């Protein structure tokens, strides 16, 4: 089933900058799609169209058949978005409150909120920190907390913007494992990165962007040769093999 359909999407910012230039892209439910491109290529702008944080200058984005602009709350509940800067998206004073923020916005009943929060915390393995303040968590834990906050809203698509930036090696592994677990559970995953090392081995599809355009869209291994032209470092095959093995063990 096609869960995301993007047709001729263009975005022009108020200062005239072209953010996106006639993008066409379809994503099936359960797919693991990586969007690659150097800084400024339009990845963040593209993700923000999925939940209507930005609205198109031209073209249309449909989620499971319904245009995003027709029902913004639905789009925001359907697409859980993890932003690049963790610190400025954690709004709760405790880990528990942070995860409860989304369900409270959905006007759920107290019991449902409790159930969803404990479920999400369990899924990311932060149950024991429920009463802690977010600023005492490590980088990897913070990012998992943000993911839990999104999961509690029960989205169908998870969109990550540079999920590994500013993370150390253990943090990267924690977050990657989390994403893989969610994908195995059937979630549709969309990841925007400027460095493919961590994720390319798991992607079903690689979408390469440059200057607001989607120029390549296909099997990641067939596109490896072309990465240099997009300002992306080619993942190192030896380290890749090793890391995949250690991550999956």
């Amino acid at each position: 089933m096609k869960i995301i359909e993007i047709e001729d999407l263009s975005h022009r910012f108020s200062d005239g900058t072209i953010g996106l230039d006639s993008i066409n892209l379809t994503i099936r439910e359960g797919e693991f799609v990586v969007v690659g491109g150097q800084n400024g290529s339009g990845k963040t702008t593209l993700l923000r169209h999925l939940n209507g944080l930005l609205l198109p200058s031209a073209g249309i984005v449909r989620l499971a058949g319904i245009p995003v602009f027709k029902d913004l709350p639905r789009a925001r509940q359907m697409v859980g978005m993890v932003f690049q800067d963790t610190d400025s998206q954690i709004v709760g004073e405790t880990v528990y409150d942070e995860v409860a923020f989304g369900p409270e916005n959905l006007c759920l009943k107290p019991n449902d909120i409790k159930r969803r929060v404990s479920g999400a915390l369990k899924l990311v393995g932060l149950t024991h920190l429920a009463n802690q303040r977010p600023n005492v968590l490590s980088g990897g834990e913070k990012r998992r907390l943000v993911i839990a906050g999104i999961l509690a809203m029960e989205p169908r698509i998870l969109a990550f913007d540079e999920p590994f930036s500013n993370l150390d090696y253990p943090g990267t592994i924690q977050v990657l494992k989390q994403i893989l677990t969610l994908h195995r559970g059937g979630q549709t995953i969309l990841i925007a990165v400027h460095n493919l090392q961590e994720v390319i081995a798991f992607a079903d599809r690689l979408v390469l962007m440059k200057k607001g355009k989607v120029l390549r869209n296909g099997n990641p291994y067939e596109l490896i040769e072309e990465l240099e032209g997009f300002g992306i470092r080619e993942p190192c095959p030896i380290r890749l093999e090793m890391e995949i093995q250690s991550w999956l063990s």
Partner: protein
Amino acid sequence: MAELTVFGFKPGKSVIHRLDVRFKLIFLIVISLASLKASGMSLFLLTLVLVAVLSHAGLSLKPVMRALGYVFVLLFFIFVARALSTPGDPFIEFKFVSVSREGIQQGALVCWRFFIVVMIGLCFVSTTRPAEIKAATEWFLNPIPFIPEKRVATMMSLIMRFIPVILNQARETADAQRARGVENRKNPVYRLKKLGIPLMRRTFETAEKIAVAMEARCYSENRSDPELSANKRDWLALFMVICLCVFILVM
């Protein structure tokens, strides 16, 4: 901000933890006010009660006292100021400085009251979830017209959440400037400007990001109401607190 961590919620199952937050907020205000009028004897009683409550709530006294170091410094200055400025029987005289007996008494009393108010605040904060404090604020503001209570409550909790972040950013910016020798410039206005402007810019950028992240999670003013419920235990506690206050005032 490690010094401030005692002023935080400590999960527990004590009676104080389970009291309705609205009642606790009232107790906080009433007892603080009463203690401002209390005599030495009743302050002693109140201290005993507070120590009992603190230990019942699972807070050990030692780390609390250590964390209150700054408060003790402040209390010391209040004490000295009182002791020197109250006229009466001279207790110690040294040249033209004289400390009166009444001054010492007065100073000690004022410090003790102040200390008790701080302890009551500590009791409240460490046994109440921030989300509950927010809910109670919303509840008390609800009957007042022209105040958007939900918005105020959200703002309050965002401020609480982001003060440490902003302080951290301030420290980072200040360090970065010190690394480039800003201390060679003696003009405080210049230095304040150089620190303030980037810090403001960063704070606004952070605020923008928070707003977008909240929007992405469907934030609107129409959200689940917080759960507050009072039962017999809360009314009983209210009765006891009133008795305590009356006792304090008449003693």
